[in-house]
């Protein structure tokens, strides 16, 4: 999502509501540069949003580094995730929604283990 938002910003000036961590600026800049070559030229958003939230386009893979995942997603070990959820609950959050990507439905079983710690 971060990459697609950054390319949107570059293409049309739409507001980027997600701040970009400096540590992943190189990946963001690389994706934006690639997106400038998307076709058709008058509708580059078509390629930009293909697969959005569904799958990773092959040409996107080189930008999805471990650092980018660590800094811009909720990905972590089970123990770390439980600590994060506890921190959210303590802060006053009352619901956590886990997006399940097509083809990765087994993730719901993993998240059920996290959930059980808070039942």
């Amino acid at each position, binding site marked *: *999502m971060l990459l*697609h938002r950054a390319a*949107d910003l570059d293409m*049309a000036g*739409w*507001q980027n*509501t*997600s701040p970009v961590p400096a540590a992943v600026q190189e990946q963001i800049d690389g994706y934006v540069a690639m997106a400038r070559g998307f076709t058709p030229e008058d*509708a580059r*958003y*078509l390629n*930009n*949003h293909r*697969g*959005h*939230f*569904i799958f990773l386009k092959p040409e996107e893979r080189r930008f999805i580094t471990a650092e980018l995942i660590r*800094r*811009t*997603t*909720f990905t972590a070990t089970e123990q770390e995730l439980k600590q*994060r*959820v506890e*921190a*959210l*609950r303590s*802060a*006053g*959050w*009352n*619901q*956590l*929604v*886990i*997006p*399940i*990507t*097509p083809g990765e*439905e087994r993730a*719901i*079983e993993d*998240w*059920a283990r*996290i*959930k*059980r710690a*808070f*039942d």
Partner: protein
Amino acid sequence: MEFGIGIATSHDSWKLAQRAEELGFTHAWFFDTQMITADCFVAMGAAALKTSRIRLGTGVLVPSNRIAAVTANAFATLNAMAPGRIDFGVGTGFSARRAMGLGAMKLADMEEYIRVVYGLLNDETLETDIEGRRRKIRFLNPDFGLINTQDPVRLHVSAYGPKSQALTAKLNAGWKTFIADVPGAIGALESMQQSWKDGGRSPGDL
């Protein structure tokens, strides 16, 4: 803490909603991204028939995808299939609109859309603009058993900035947002709590 799942809507999303219910998840939220995923209301209808406890919501519906009367009807139909288990999540649009080359819709237009949807769900006769003219509309047969306008459909607004957060408070709605880390999540919550307070709402109701 409640746990829900976000579903990239598919023809067989009911399977995921069913499994989520078995595992004790409280909510299944269906993407409304017409250029990217399957239709949310069709998929929610199947899920409504295949589940009995989990709440089913749009996560989030984008008003410009359909006129308000059609959306109200879809929620009322779902509410007949899964009485009292339906949530109306709504936002100004990211994926659904950007995939068509559009930016987010105006917040005021979303507020008007919500007014019309809930007016119809409350069996009111209301006025709204349709094809350039002000017209009175209402559901004509809400008591005939075709749809359910009796059980409440909860409103949840996707809100990132202060204006949309203020609207969330004004409408006394549930609040939805994206988070990627704990500090960011806590900062977002503090911002929303301030908007909630500024809107005259009780902290415990957020």
